[in-house]
């Protein structure tokens, strides 16, 4: 594997939160990489630091959280060396982010179109007409009738909102999308619909994905490789197939066992 195949390369990343009792290290020297067009799953329970990594990759941390050490290289560029202006332009155009709760990611007092327009205008400086054309294109891409562009977020169903958030992440054609539990707040059927949508878009555009979830079963349906995180450290990284059929670390096995599956019969009276 040559260096240039790697789109994202993280080395010895450390993230601290300042607390009254001194710094708390949430991410304890993590190494990971994502190749171009690859889907990497990151799994672990709440508080293990997986979302902290997602925020660190986009340098979204605000005090009391700060990156205490390590290197983040995206497409050959040192992300930690960017100044504020470069960072603002870089975010979303190179790497975008999809949050867990679509309702919180969308501004409730702006229409769907206005949310698209804001991002588009800020980054490209193009006119409202051009933004409208791009927004229509994106809505069709994720399977929503473009007439809904003038609706407010509360007028859409949970699944549609998540599609809008996905479309918004695609607006500047980024090369990587970080997805922080993109389907967790959804029903199983809608979850499957969104996952299918993400997989289709990924195939079409070939971007890389960092897919964060606590649902290992869901992740192994979709990810190429999976990293398992425990208490700020990555304890196992392997292909999705190996994580499923041949988990090495005790914690990985524990995560598999924690989920009742249809094969379990012990609970049924």
């Amino acid at each position, binding site marked *: 594997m040559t260096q240039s195949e790697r789109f994202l390369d993280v080395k010895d990343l450390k993230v601290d939160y300042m607390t009254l009792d001194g710094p708390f290290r949430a991410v304890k020297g993590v190494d990971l990489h994502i190749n171009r067009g690859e889907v990497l799953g990151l799994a672990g329970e709440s508080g293990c630091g997986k979302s902290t990594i997602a925020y660190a990759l986009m340098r979204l941390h605000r005090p009391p959280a700060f990156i205490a050490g390590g290197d983040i290289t995206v497409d050959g560029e040192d992300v930690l060396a960017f100044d504020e202006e470069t960072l603002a332009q870089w975010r979303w155009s190179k790497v975008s982010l999809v949050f867990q709760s679509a309702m919180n990611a969308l501004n409730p007092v702006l229409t769907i179109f206005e949310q698209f327009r804001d991002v588009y205008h800020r980054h490209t400086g193009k006119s409202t007409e051009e933004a409208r054309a791009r927004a229509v294109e994106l809505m069709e891409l994720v399977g929503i009738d473009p007439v809904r562009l003038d609706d407010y977020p509360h007028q859409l169903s949970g699944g549609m909102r998540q599609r809008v958030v996905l479309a918004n992440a695609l607006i500047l054609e980024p090369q990587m999308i970080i997805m922080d539990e993109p389907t967790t707040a959804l029903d*199983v059927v809608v979850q499957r619909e969104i996952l299918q949508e993400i997989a289709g878009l990924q195939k079409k555009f070939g971007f890389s994905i960092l897919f964060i979830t606590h649902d*290992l079963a869901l992740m192994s349906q979709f990810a190429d490789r999976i990293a398992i995180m425990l208490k700020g450290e990555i304890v196992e990284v392997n292909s999705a197939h190996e994580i499923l059929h041949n988990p090495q670390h005790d914690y990985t096995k524990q995560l598999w066992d924690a989920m009742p599956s249809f094969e379990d019969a012990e609970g049924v009276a």
Partner: protein
Amino acid sequence: MTDQPYLEVKGVSKTYTLKTIFSGSKQVKALQDISFKLGRGEALALVGESGSGKSTCGRAIAGMFDIDAGDILVNGKSITSARNSKEKRENARKVQMVFQDPFASLNPTHTVRHHLARPLSLHSRVPDGSTLEQEVIRTLEDVELDPSVMLDKYPHELSGGQRQRINLARALAVGAELIIADEPTSMLDVSIRRSILNLMNRLKKERGITFLYITHDLATAHYLTENTAVMFGGRIVEFGPSDLIVRDPQHAYSKLLLSSVPNAHTRINADFEHARDFSKFADKVRAETAASTGALEEISTGRFVRAA
């Protein structure tokens, strides 16, 4: 009468009228002619998507609002028949709820001791020869928590799993016979979900507590319950033994629900041209299920499917 079900729901309907500022009022049929029976010490899962009426059904049984039509019998007695506060309190004692959000369902300003002591004293559940403190400790032990460290803790000092155990303890403290658990594990970490399910399973087997388990997760429903009712749009579309529903679903909506459960062994089809096929299929099934007027028919003993 040994074959009398512990809980019997007969033709229950509930319609909400939504009054919005901008448009006229809208009727939402939250429950339409729901009927089922649940034996003592058994568990029934109500499964469906958000808005299917599964939580409304649970809340109706807990007596949290009045129903429009039908009757709910607990231990052969209608819950609406209570004439005075003593009878109402007795009904409330027997049927307890555990909610989805363990963070919102405990009072942040009170200790664990208060959360358990209060229901015990309100319902006069301290037998002669015991003290309130002893009963609180006993209840904590029932849910596998260590009283020596737990008693004086506040909810913010507890993990999600510990809080959900306190919620279960609170229901046990008053001698609940039926516990309505509304997605009790969906806000918990995967790694502790099973332990809460195991606790419920133990309470069911050892204490003979009847459970109504509300969930959208068919795998956990199958794990805990004897019977499953699949709900859609305020109606039951399929009812039967949980393992049969999981192995051989009959109704199109049950099949859709089951096929959506993440299965680690099947990769999803990532072809962009066909990415939306599943979505289209799901929409079709939902529309057909919503429009169907068929009756619930018994296809084999204890197995009901709504005709298309």
